[in-house]
């Protein structure tokens, strides 16, 4: 027994020493980067290696996410609702004065609380601008798309084509372009002469209102659902893992607005693995089984509806759900 105990104990200090050494080295590097940045020296973001990303992807985030979702479906006894939701409100800085229903006893479980709606007057829709924010959150990045690469945060990019998938939905939009004389995937998307491609990334923190709305007047013609990982998408991880948004489960809605191509993509994360689009009853996200790299398409154009789903600026479009 003694020998077995000794054998078991010996790896422990080795693991602790190597793990501690690695974390120490990593933290020192981050400290040094912060020092350089404070001196005004631009430091390239520290990108995770393929090994680190592969290690991260071995974490069963989808299973954890579904378990988290099931846990939050459990109906709380009335007396427990106020303390549990008050802790959540305090932790994430939720402003219940804006909620359509302020009485915490109304919400049977955390999942319902997470899907709370706001009072209509809590978010006036800006009339003077053609594009509004679809949700509450933090602007991670925005700007022009160049060379088919989109920045998830400054300096960390992902491939436009990997993110949206092949440009096959154009047939449904009747946007066929003579592909052989085009220089890039990005050119396929821009349908009008003199236009450019723009992007904006909005990060929703756990305490934010998690419904999303139409950012402009447009018609949605096509949905592409990419099952995938559910890694965290918080800004720190977005700075660390290149192509993060291409790894994660996401739903791409594409269509047209007054100036041509328009798309909105909802990207899931560990705690919010499920995405709902109110007008799309067929969509099922965060399912137990899926094949890597797969995606499934759905067209909203039909014989008697060549227009797709017309969405007004500010209209309810969908929501993220726990699990």
């Amino acid at each position: 027994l003694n020998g077995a105990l000794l054998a078991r104990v010996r790896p422990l200090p080795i693991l602790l020493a190597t793990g501690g050494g690695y974390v120490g080295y990593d933290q020192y590097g981050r400290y040094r980067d912060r020092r350089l940045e404070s001196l005004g020296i631009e430091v390239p973001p520290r990108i995770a290696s393929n090994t680190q990303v592969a290690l991260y992807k071995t974490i069963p985030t989808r299973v954890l996410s579904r378990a988290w979702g099931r846990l939050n479906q459990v109906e709380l006894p009335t007396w427990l609702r106020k303390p549990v939701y008050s802790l959540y409100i305090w932790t994430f800085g939720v402003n219940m004065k804006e909620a359509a229903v302020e009485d915490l006893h109304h919400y049977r479980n955390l999942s319902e609380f997470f899907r709370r709606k706001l009072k209509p007057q809590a978010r006036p829709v800006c009339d003077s601008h053609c594009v509004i924010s679809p949700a509450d959150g933090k602007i991670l990045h925005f700007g022009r798309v160049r060379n088919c690469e989109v920045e998830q945060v400054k300096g960390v990019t992902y491939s436009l084509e990997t993110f949206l998938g092949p440009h096959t939905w154009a047939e449904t939009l009747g946007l066929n372009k003579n592909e052989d004389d085009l220089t890039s995937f990005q050119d396929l998307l821009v349908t009008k002469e003199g236009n450019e491609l723009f992007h904006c990334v909005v990060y929703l923190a756990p305490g934010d209102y998690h419904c999303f709305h139409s950012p402009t007047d447009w018609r949605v013609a096509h949905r592409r659902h990419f099952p995938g990982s559910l890694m965290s998408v918080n800004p720190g991880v977005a700075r660390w893992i290149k192509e993060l948004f291409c790894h994660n489960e996401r739903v791409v809605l594409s269509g047209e607005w007054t100036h041509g191509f328009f798309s909105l993509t909802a990207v899931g994360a560990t705690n919010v693995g499920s995405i709902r689009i109110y007008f799309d009853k067929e969509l099922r996200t965060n399912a137990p089984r899926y094949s890597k790299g797969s995606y499934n398409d759905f067209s909203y154009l039909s014989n008697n509806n060549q227009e797709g789903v017309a969405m007004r600026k500010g209209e309810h479009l969908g929501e993220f759900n726990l699990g």
Partner: protein
Amino acid sequence: STIVLLFEAPRDFTFNLKPGQKIRFGEALGTM
């Protein structure tokens, strides 16, 4: 979770944003 908007617009489209700023549903992102 995250929402990514990708769209085409005339060259003079401008965002009135700063990276890292908080934003709320309904507030302006940009205009021509």
